[in-house]
């Protein structure tokens, strides 16, 4: 099976003259089967790339909504092993690129090589690593090359030019541009810092730069889409899933992608 990569999906969106839409959903919230259903629902409603988050005991980059969801998943007994079935379940049912967003210790614990191998076998495209910087990523650079996985590192408004350059060079697929100095969470406006971060990433040679943190509305997607290659939505979708289940998350994806029919 040839895996669908995030770069392919971003290129396809670009060809249609729009930014790629990237959706974050936490694994095992409220349960593994629903994670798959929710992912398929967003893919059917205009989402190009799905990020499945691995629940972790110490999620320092997450705000309250995502923390509560992942804490609930852990309390319900989520196991890292389940991530592979979830990825497989999604990739077998839709043609979105499927990534995993994970804090690094769970991967380290399983073994970077083993995790990468099983993830690739399940059809996953690559990993987004919020608390792993390229400086510490030796093992991951090796494993991602071996299993042909995309490496999505983050750049922030505070990143020096030198660090942006280093991070872009280490990344593949796309570069995750953090829109704001802060943690995940829906915000009413998207920080103006985002545009500068994207410009810095492009200037450093990033083919694709996508923006995340704080995006919750269609107008944000349009605004960011004017300068970025993709737009990442997390908290708003998690809140929709929490409050209205799979139909609500599908409806929000449709609205965000502009595919909702009036």
């Amino acid at each position, binding site marked *: 099976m040839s895996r669908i990569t995030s770069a392919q999906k971003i290129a396809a969106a670009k060809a249609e003259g729009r930014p790629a839409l990237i959706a974050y959903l936490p694994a095992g919230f409220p349960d593994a089967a629903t994670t798959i259903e929710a992912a398929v629902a967003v893919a059917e409603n205009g989402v190009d790339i799905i990020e499945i988050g691995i629940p972790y005991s110490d999620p*320092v980059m997450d705000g309250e909504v995502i923390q509560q969801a992942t804490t609930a998943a852990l309390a319900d007994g989520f196991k890292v092993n389940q991530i592979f079935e979830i990825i497989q379940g999604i990739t077998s049912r839709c043609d979105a690129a499927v990534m995993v967003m994970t804090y690094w210790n769970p991967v380290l614990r399983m073994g970077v090589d083993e995790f990468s191998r099983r993830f690739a076998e399940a059809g996953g495209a690559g990993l987004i690593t919020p608390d792993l910087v390229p400086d510490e990523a030796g093992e991951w650079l090796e494993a991602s090359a071996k299993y042909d996985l995309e490496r999505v590192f983050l750049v922030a408004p505070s990143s020096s030019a030198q660090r942006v350059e280093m991070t872009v060079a280490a990344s593949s697929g796309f570069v995750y541009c953090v829109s704001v100095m802060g943690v995940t969470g829906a915000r009413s406006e998207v920080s103006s810092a985002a545009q500068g971060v994207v410009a810095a990433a492009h200037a450093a040679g990033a083919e694709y730069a996508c923006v995340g943190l704080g995006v919750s509305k269609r107008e944000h997607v349009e605004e960011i889409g004017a300068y970025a290659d993709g737009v990442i939505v997390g908290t708003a979708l998690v809140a929709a899933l929490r409050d209205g289940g799979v139909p609500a998350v599908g409806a929000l994806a449709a609205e965000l992608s502009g595919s909702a029919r009036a």
Partner: protein
Amino acid sequence: MSTSDGSLKNASGPYFGQYGGRWMPESLMAAMDELTRTFEDAKNDPDFIAEVRELNKNYSGRPSLLTEAKRFGEQFCGGARIFLKREDLNHTGSHKINNVLGQALLAKRMGKTRIIAETGAGQHGVASATAAALMGMECVVYMGAEDTRRQALNVARMELLGATVIPVTVGSQTLKDAINEALRDWVANVDSTHYLLGTAAGGHPFPALVRYFHQVIGDEAREQILEQAGRLPDAVTACVGGGSNAIGIFHGFLDDAGVEIYGFEAGGDGVDTERTAATITLGRPGVLHGAKSYLMQDEDGQTVESHSISAGLDYPGVGPEHAYLADIGRVHYEAITDTEAMDAFRALCRTEGILPAIESAHALAGTIKVAGRKIAAGAKPQDVVIVVSLSGRGDKDVHTAAEWFGLLDDAQDQAADAQEGK
């Protein structure tokens, strides 16, 4: 890591063998770089060094005493000579002040006006609030909601000192979650704010930086024991939570090959139970709060909650330099149970008139064992010399100890609970 001349002293990081580094979000890298630069500059600035010395001397009350615990040595250590490094006599009652004064000065140097800190029992929070008050800075302390209830008096102390205490209600609501919450605050406010980490853990440069401000413990102790005993000790002991008092005193003796060094972790109910905080004894390498080190984690890499009667040792991680010193065998790490620690606590109270912090009582319990082994192996008791880091005083622990020893009858219990706001 050892330098080319084989010295273990002044290890600069970022790595200590395979441990240490910066396993943390990119958003914080600029702040960590700025802190590293500021620290490296300050270390070489005579004015900064003089300022730290002056505060240590005329504010904290350094040098702290080295007191020979004769009756404790005779009655509990088979007659070995035990010397206590009296960090309990520092202003605010523990070694924590050494680090907060130094870091607060660094924060000022960086032009930051706001300090944030995590705290478990409240010792580091109180010390941070103290430094912030002294230097006219805003201070916010994150504390697990459960701990704010158990340590209501320390919450009041911090508030009296002008700090804001924020109860952390997410995750397990303990010290590790307080650190997570402080990190989230830092990401959002990094321009104005310095995160004053309270132990020798975290991403680079924190382990080396926190050690630097605590090295004074070991430097003084080495000089004092040479003067009082006329020679280097056979062993140096300390309790290990994140490892700051321990690395501070160890540093003075790391290059003295004849000095055995022991770190005592909190064993809780015992290392064969689930209620323990013996990170090096039971943990395996992983990353948490910015550093690779030993970590109490499950088979999925999720952090496991720790348990100890001592809030200051109740942490599932440990500083990376300790992980390295354990691996190369320079320092021996062992676990002490709650019961062993509390027996040693009472022993010191009764023989020396010194109420130790329960954290420090772990070092005392370990010292009793080390002395016993040396004598059992044939050493003449009066020839055995051990220096113990008495990292803090036990005033904060009176309620816990009184409960442990059943000194509170029901009425007193209720009164104390009411006072603590339970």
